[in-house]
């Protein structure tokens, strides 16, 4: 039996202020959903540190050339967390922050679930859950066949992986030894409604809901399917960066990599943390003000300073191997 790899401590990452960016992105999520009176909050917040670390620390992408053929592919398979992705893409320069206000409105590029026909920079349309990993399998197969060295990243929810199609992709990825494919599981332990917790299942911080995978060793499941598994704290930037480096380097034993990132649903907003009721909700005025006090950037000009100005060193076009760190 293979033992689970552990994401070790990252090297010092120089440039981007990841916690600051994540806080801004979380604030944009709350603000946008409140204004749109629609959208999701819990999921976007739980994955935010993973996403900011990807877009500002790992992905080889060119916001000014979103269809750059050599770019890394990223698929947000848990498409209902779209507003989280749009917020990060806005901070990264794929769109103006102001455009977030069009979220969920008619004719907007920012649909309730990601639509690649509308917004450049999206590599897949998602929202019907469980489909993204299959697209990633195709991209990784295509990369190998075309002899391209981009990496394909797919972010899934831990509720989402109840879908059977995910496990179809899991077995094919292992059979084809797709080392350039990485699945990231936002393991927040909650889903939209789920099952009520019982005496047996209540030993988490998830309120009255049980973990969708209670009693299942997900790590062992993926390993048994032939995947390399890395478990990490999905809110610890150093662990995240180290796990991403490990994933990109590829498993010497030819397995695809899954990063099981333990997260807290609603992370960063004290009202929402660990509560399934914040999966999809429009904050009240009081909650919105509370969120503002917790999340709104101290210096308002931060919002203007980040878009279109990628911190040095994160554009893979300039330094294609800079993120290709040694295996942790």
């Amino acid at each position, binding site marked *: 039996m293979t033992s689970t790899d552990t994401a070790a401590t990252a090297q010092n990452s120089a440039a981007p202020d990841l916690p600051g960016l994540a806080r801004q992105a979380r604030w944009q999520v709350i603000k946008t959903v409140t204004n749109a009176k629609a959208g999701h909050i819990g999921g976007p917040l739980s994955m935010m540190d993973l996403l900011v670390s990807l877009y500002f620390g790992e992905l080889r992408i060119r916001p000014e050339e979103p269809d750059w053929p050599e770019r890394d592919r990223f698929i947000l398979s848990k498409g209902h967390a779209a507003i989280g992705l749009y917020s990060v893409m806005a901070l990264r320069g794929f769109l103006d922050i102001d455009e977030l206000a069009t979220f969920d409105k008619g004719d907007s590029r920012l649909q309730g679930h990601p639509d*690649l026909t509308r917004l450049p920079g999206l*590599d897949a349309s*998602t929202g019907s859950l469980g*489909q993204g990993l299959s697209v990633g399998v195709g*991209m*990784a197969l295509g990369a190998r066949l075309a002899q391209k060295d981009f990496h394909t990243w797919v972010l899934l929810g831990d509720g989402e992986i109840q879908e059977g199609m995910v496990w179809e992709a899991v077995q094919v990825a292992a059979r084809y030894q797709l080392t350039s494919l990485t699945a990231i599981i936002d393991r927040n332990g909650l889903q939209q409604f789920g099952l009520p917790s019982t005496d047996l299942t209540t030993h988490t911080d998830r309120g009255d809901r049980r973990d969708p995978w209670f009693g299942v060793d997900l790590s062992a499941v993926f390993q048994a399917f032939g995947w390399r598994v890395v478990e990490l704290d999905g809110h610890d930037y150093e662990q995240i960066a180290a796990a991403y480096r490990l994933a990109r380097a590829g498993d010497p034993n030819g397995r695809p990599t899954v990063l099981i990132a333990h997260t807290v649903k609603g992370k960063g907003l004290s009202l929402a943390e660990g509560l399934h009721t914040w999966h999809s909700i429009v904050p009240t005025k009081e909650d919105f003000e509370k969120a503002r006090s917790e999340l709104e950037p101290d210096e308002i000009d931060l919002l203007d300073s980040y878009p279109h100005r990628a911190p040095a060193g994160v554009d893979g076009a300039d330094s294609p191997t800079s993120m290709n760190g040694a295996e942790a």
Partner: protein
Amino acid sequence: MKAMRDVWGEKLVQLGDSDPRTVVLDGDLANSTKADKFARAHPDRFFQMGIAEQNLIGAAAGLASVGFVPWTSSFTVFLTHRAIDPIRMLVAQTYANVKIAGSYSGLLIGAVGKTHLDVQDLAIMRAMPGIVVLAPADETELVSMMDWATVHEGPVYLRLVRDAVPDLVGSDYSFTPGAVHQLRSGNEVTLVSTGPQTSRVLTASDQLAASGVSVSVVHVPCIKPVDSDALLDAVGDVPLVVTVEEHSIYGGLGSLVAELLTANRSAPRVVRIGIDDTWGESAGNDFMLAKHGLSAGRISERVRSLLPSRVAG
């Protein structure tokens, strides 16, 4: 006369020879669909997705997004039914350049029964914005459609049958999307059909003509898009239109024709022959065609019964 699946498999090999973007994703049925020919000729571009059709479609969309032209290899029913959500989301809604080849469509797929029969595929795929829906009648038409599909940027659904089918279109045939083909001209009744069923309709029309009925026959190989004006012209000014398809009478060719005709002020009577809201069974081809009114004899019989009675000659 070659089995349609052999024609498909051999043409795939050719496309693989001439276009390095051609890839095939199989759902563990390559030796039935005859994609195994491609697997032997181009093993590096043949992907075995196993018995998992949803992922097959998703992976095809992924391969298309990085510049390949993926063809699927499975039975129609497992694609248009089992994998319909990935087709809807990942192929149709994104206009992905995926060629969905649905083998073993219709009634004539060997004695496998209703589990494997697909007589709803046209209804399902027709309702899917963005997909071109094709039903070739014979070898020449299939090959021409595949040449067209591989160049066309966007999703295509290709309805294939298993067995050999008689030649219908001439050797100079060239597929044009939307085009309809008038094969016989008459003024009492117009028979409209698609796929290999058109050949049986043609035989039926000869039987009818021999008994003095003036019959038009229209072949509609492209269910979507269709050139509506051309179809209305070809149907002509007749009092009776009979559609005939190896498909449910709901949502397929019959519905298409009825929808177009009834949008006009004075529509002729439209009778739809096809699978009449029932499931299939395990049986041989002749049994199936006769039971569902799709053999040439049953068609001509039915049409005669719909025409005003005439004195027997």
